[in-house]
């Protein structure tokens, strides 16, 4: 790691006064003057160890008071501070009973050791795991380069990559927790340097590669996630989450699906279906949602919804297995609801 100084932030405003860049900006156009912040620091240290991020200063927001709380209210819903660790979410009884898909997603994310350190804010803001993007030897589009190494039909190692929205970048988003959060229609609270707070739906928080190749989310240099808010579930809300991995113990997702439904008996009244590891950002499948809404939740209708989700899929040379994998996983996740 390069030499950097350390600033221990006392408040959100204090931290925002210090920072002058984002990891995304630094990866796209490196400077030697970056001040970036970190909470748990897992993704930040990963980039610094790789030599792709050379910060002059790291602002530690981990110990800012008040950002490590979980609060649940039956009417107002759930608020999770940006510094809450994944382990704290996994062991929260109200999240397990009211937001099952989120509980399941967190429980299948990373390792026990990483869950004790990784925070929710950092988890959703982490950059993708494409091995070319993470390699100092590969100057890809995301880093201001002139090509996508993963896309190449012969030399591209793209078995873990995107099958949907895979235009200029074929990476998949690294956060499987974001899949569940988006399915619950979660919002991200962002604080800016002027002391203002804005609340943005998860659907609008992530930025597609087509919109801006350098970014995976809307966070600007002087902005910070302070909270994630989930609306209160009704007594008819049901949720489920399934993640497919190559290695059972722990692994990055090959295909993960979160389903949140309002049900009446065994009929789906409304559905929120989000796919992880399918596209460069968590992918809401409007096609699957429409296919299952106002239908009985059964094997036939679940299969139809799952197939509808894959109509726009454009697999790469080595990842066409993901299409049937998603079909069966979406079907299975919907059927978990019934």
């Amino acid at each position: 790691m390069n030499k950097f100084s350390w600033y221990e932030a006392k408040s959100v405003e204090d931290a925002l006064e210090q920072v002058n860049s984002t990891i995304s900006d630094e990866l796209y156009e490196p400077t030697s003057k970056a001040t970036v912040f970190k909470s748990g620091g897992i993704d930040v240290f990963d980039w610094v160890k790789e030599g792709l991020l050379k910060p002059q200063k790291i602002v530690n927001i981990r110990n800012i008071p008040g950002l490590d709380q979980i609060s649940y209210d039956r009417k107002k819903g759930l608020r999770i501070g940006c510094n809450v660790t994944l382990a704290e979410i996994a062991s929260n009884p109200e999240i397990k009973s009211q937001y099952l898909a989120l509980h399941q997603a967190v429980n299948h994310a990373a390792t026990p050791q990483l869950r004790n350190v990784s925070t929710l804010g950092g988890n959703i803001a982490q950059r993708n795991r494409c091995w070319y993007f993470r390699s100092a030897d590969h100057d890809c589009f995301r880093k201001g380069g002139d090509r996508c190494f993963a896309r190449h039909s012969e030399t591209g190692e793209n078995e873990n990559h995107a099958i949907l929205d895979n235009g200029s970048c074929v990476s998949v988003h690294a956060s499987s927790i974001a899949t569940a959060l988006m399915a619950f229609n979660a919002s991200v609270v962002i604080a800016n340097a002027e002391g203002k707070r804005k609340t943005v739906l998860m659907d609008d928080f992530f930025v597609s590669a087509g919109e801006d190749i350098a970014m995976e989310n809307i966070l600007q240099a002087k902005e910070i996630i302070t909270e994630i808010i989930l609306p209160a579930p009704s007594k008819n809300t049901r949720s489920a989450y399934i993640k497919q991995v190559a290695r059972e113990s722990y692994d990055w997702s090959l295909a993960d699906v979160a389903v949140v439904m309002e049900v009446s008996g065994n009929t789906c009244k409304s559905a929120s279906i989000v796919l992880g590891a399918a596209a460069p950002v968590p992918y809401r499948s409007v096609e699957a949602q429409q296919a299952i809404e106002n239908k009985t939740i059964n094997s036939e209708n679940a299969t139809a919804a799952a197939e509808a989700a894959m109509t726009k899929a454009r697999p790469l040379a080595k990842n066409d297995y993901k299409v049937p994998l998603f079909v069966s996983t979406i079907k299975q996740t919907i059927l978990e609801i019934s």
Partner: protein
Amino acid sequence: MENKDQDRESKPAKTISRRSFIRGAGLSTASSVLLTSNAFALEYKEPLATGKEFGPDAMTIKMKVNGITKSLSVEPRTTLASALRDHLELTGTKVVCDRGSCSACTVYLDGKPVNSCMISAFDVGDKEVTTIEGIAKNGELHPVQEAFIEHDASQCGYCTPGMVMSCVHLVDNTPDPNLEDVKNATRGNLCRCGTYPHVFKATLAAAKKTI
């Protein structure tokens, strides 16, 4: 066992062990580095004061490790793993992948298992660090350590300290754990020799003994 540093001072090794040979070979370089960094070292009281900038040069911090408060001179980029191994000579903690993927470097921070390779020594603050050297108490091995020996739960041994840390944490915090609990506790610990079945057996046996 508990206080390795003192043991070493009171009992100088007569035969040259691999470890002391390596340490001796690097001594002249190490001491000159220490002198240089100490010359500019700043003192601070734990936990790290907020609203202040530290580094990038080395400064003296205090860290409570295995019940003893130590002073060490580190930079913000010094990982906890490096602080333990290179500065405090607690080399029981192993660094393998150096990216939080294998958990060989597992230590406890306030009793919770973490990857010491992925956090800065500056992240520790007033939290208490427990390493593999702090698991045996009063010269007696923890039941998990005894069971690892009894059930032949290590081969090359490089994953063993991290594996023991995960299993001790489970046994000390979970009443009557089952096989699934052991698998969950060791999910992050990679063993290239494939000693998992013996690790599981040893941990379950140790858990029975501690009831």
